[in-house]
C-alpha cells in the first residue's frame, strides 16, 4: 500500500516538474521566438527595449556574474574549509557559525539588495555599478554556497582525515590534495546553484547595479542585468511583452548551457584529476 502511494507521489512529482517546465518553455517560445534573432542578441536596445536587442545587457549580466562568483567562491571555500577542520574540535563555535549561515541563507534577496545599496553604493561610494551588484550577489550566495561546500566536505571519510593527520600533513595539503578533489562534484554543484541564482536574480540588482542599458565600460559603470531587463520590459514598458519573452528565453537557454557545460566538466573529472596527480 505504502509502495503504491510512494509510486503515485513520485509520478505526480515528476509530472508536475516536467509539466511546469514544458508549459513554461512552450509559452516562452510561442511568444518570444519571433523577436529572437541574431540581431536581437548582438545589437543595443532602442526605445526602452521595445526595439533593438540585448547585447549590452548580456555583457552587464556576465560581468556581474563573474564578479559575484569571483568574490563568493574563494571566500566560501575558505570558510567551509575552516569549518571542516574546526567542526570536530569546537562544537559550540561551529554550531553558532552554522546557525548564522542558515539564517543568512533564508533572508529574501531584496533585503540583500537594500543592504547592498546602503553598504556598497552609499557607504563605500561605489554607486549604482556592476561592482556593487556583483558584491551584493556574492554576499547573497555566500551562505548557501558555504553550507553546500561544507556539506560536501563532510563526506570525506573520517579515516582519510585520520591517516593524513597521522602522517603530519598540514591542513593546506589535506585541503588541496584530498578534501577538494574528493568533494569536487559537490563543489561544482554548489557553484552551479550559485551561478543560477545570480543569473536569475532581480530584486538584489535593481537597487545596486541599476537600470542603465548603455554598454558598460568598466565595473564602475551601472549596467542592467538580463533579469532586471525582463522585469522592466514586462512591468514598466507598455508593449514590451514580446521582447521580455524573448529575453526570458535567452535567460533560460543561458542557464541551460551553464548547467550542461559544468556538468559535462564534472563528468570528465576523474580523467583530469588522475592526470593532474603526478
Amino acid at each position, binding site marked *: 500500500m505504502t509502495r503504491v502511494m510512494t509510486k503515485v507521489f513520485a509520478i505526480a512529482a515528476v509530472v508536475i516538474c516536467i509539466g511546469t517546465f514544458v508549459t513554461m518553455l512552450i509559452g516562452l517560445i510561442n511568444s518570444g521566438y519571433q523577436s529572437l534573432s541574431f540581431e536581437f542578441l548582438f545589437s543595443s536596445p532602442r526605445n526602452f527595449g521595445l526595439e533593438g536587442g540585448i547585447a549590452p545587457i548580456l555583457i552587464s549580466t556576465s560581468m556581474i556574474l563573474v564578479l559575484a562568483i569571483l568574490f563568493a567562491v574563494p571566500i566560501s571555500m575558505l570558510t567551509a574549509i575552516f569549518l571542516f577542520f574546526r567542526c*570536530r574540535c569546537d562544537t559550540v563555535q561551529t554550531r553558532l557559525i552554522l546557525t548564522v549561515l542558515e539564517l543568512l541563507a533564508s533572508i529574501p534577496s531584496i533585503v540583500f539588495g537594500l543592504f547592498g545599496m546602503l553598504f556598497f553604493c552609499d557607504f563605500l561610494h561605489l554607486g549604482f555599478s556592476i561592482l556593487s551588484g556583483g558584491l551584493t550577489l556574492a554576499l547573497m550566495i555566500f551562505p548557501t554556497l558555504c553550507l553546500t561546500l561544507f556539506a560536501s566536505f563532510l563526506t570525506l571519510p573520517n579515516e582519510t582525515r585520520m*591517516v593524513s593527520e597521522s*602522517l603530519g600533513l598540514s591542513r593546506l*595539503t589535506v585541503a588541496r590534495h584530498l578534501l577538494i578533489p574528493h568533494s569536487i562534484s559537490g563543489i561544482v554543484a554548489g557553484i552551479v546553484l550559485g551561478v543560477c541564482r545570480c543569473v536569475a536574480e532581480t530584486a538584489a540588482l535593481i537597487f545596486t547595479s541599476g537600470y542603465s542599458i548603455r554598454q558598460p565600460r568598466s565595473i564602475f559603470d551601472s549596467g542592467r542585468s538580463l533579469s532586471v531587463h525582463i522585469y522592466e520590459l514586462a512591468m514598466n514598458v507598455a508593449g514590451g511583452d514580446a521582447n521580455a519573452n524573448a529575453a526570458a528565453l535567452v535567460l533560460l537557454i543561458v542557464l541551460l548551457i551553464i548547467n550542461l557545460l559544468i556538468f559535462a566538466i564534472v563528468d570528465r573529472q576523474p580523467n583530469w584529476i588522475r592526470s593532474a596527480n603526478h
Partner: protein
Amino acid sequence: MTTSPNIFEINNFSASYRDAEALNDVSLNIPRRGIMSIIGPSGCGKSTLLNSLNRITDLTPDFSHRGDVHFDGQNIYQRDFDVVNLRKNVGLIFQKPNPFPFSVYKNLSLPLKEHGMRNRKEIESTVNESMKIVGLLDEVSNIRRRNATELSGGQQQRLCIARTLTLKPKVLLCDEPCSALDPVSGKKIEDLLVRLGKEISVVVVTHNLAQAKRISDCVAFFCMVEGVGKLIEKGDTQKIFNAAQHHMTREYVDGSFG
C-alpha cells in the same frame, strides 16, 4: 641529555572519552628496537594507546588524558611540543588499508614533500627505496599512473607502510595490520614487520596470539578491570606465553579467558 634505551616512556597514563575512562594508569616502556605486541580482549584500550602515541587523539574532541608520555626524552603533551615532527617520527598503520585515492607515487611523495623534501631525484629514490623495502617495487609497475585504490588489499596495506617508511620513522605503530587481509598477504606484512623490527621500534596490536608469539620480542597484555582498560603484564614473549605471572594473562594466552 642521556639517551635512554626506550623510544617511548609512558608514565601513569590514563585516557578517557568524555567521562568514560578507556585506559587507566598505564606505565610502559617501548624499546628503540624490536617488536612489541599488544594483546588483549576487545575494548581494553589498545587502539586508544596507539593513537595517543601519535597524538592522533587530538582529533577526538571528547578525548582527555592524565599522566605523561615521553618520546625520545621529550614529553609529547608539553606546551610547545612539535606534533608534526612527532608524527613524522611515529608512523601509524590502521586496520583497514587506506591509501589516498591518487597514484601510488603521489601517495608516497606527498608526505615527503610535506616534510620538506624538495629535490626531485631525492624524492624519487626515497620512494623507490620504500617500495623496495615493502616488496612492491617489482610487484607494481607504472607507479606514477597506477591509482593506489586499484591495488589489492594486501598491496594497499604494504603501500601504507611504505608511505610512513618514506619519512624514516623511529617507531611504527600498527593497529591490527593483518586482520583485514588474507593469510598470504598477512604473512608478507608479518615478515616485513620482522625485518623492520631489526632497525626500528615496531608496536603491533594483534588479536592473533600465534602471530604475537611468532614475531614479537616482548608482549604487553591489556585487559578490562571493572570496565577500564589496564596494563596487566608486560614481558618477554617467552615469559608471557609460557610463564606469565598474572592469572588473567595465563588464561588469555591459554584461550580459557572469560
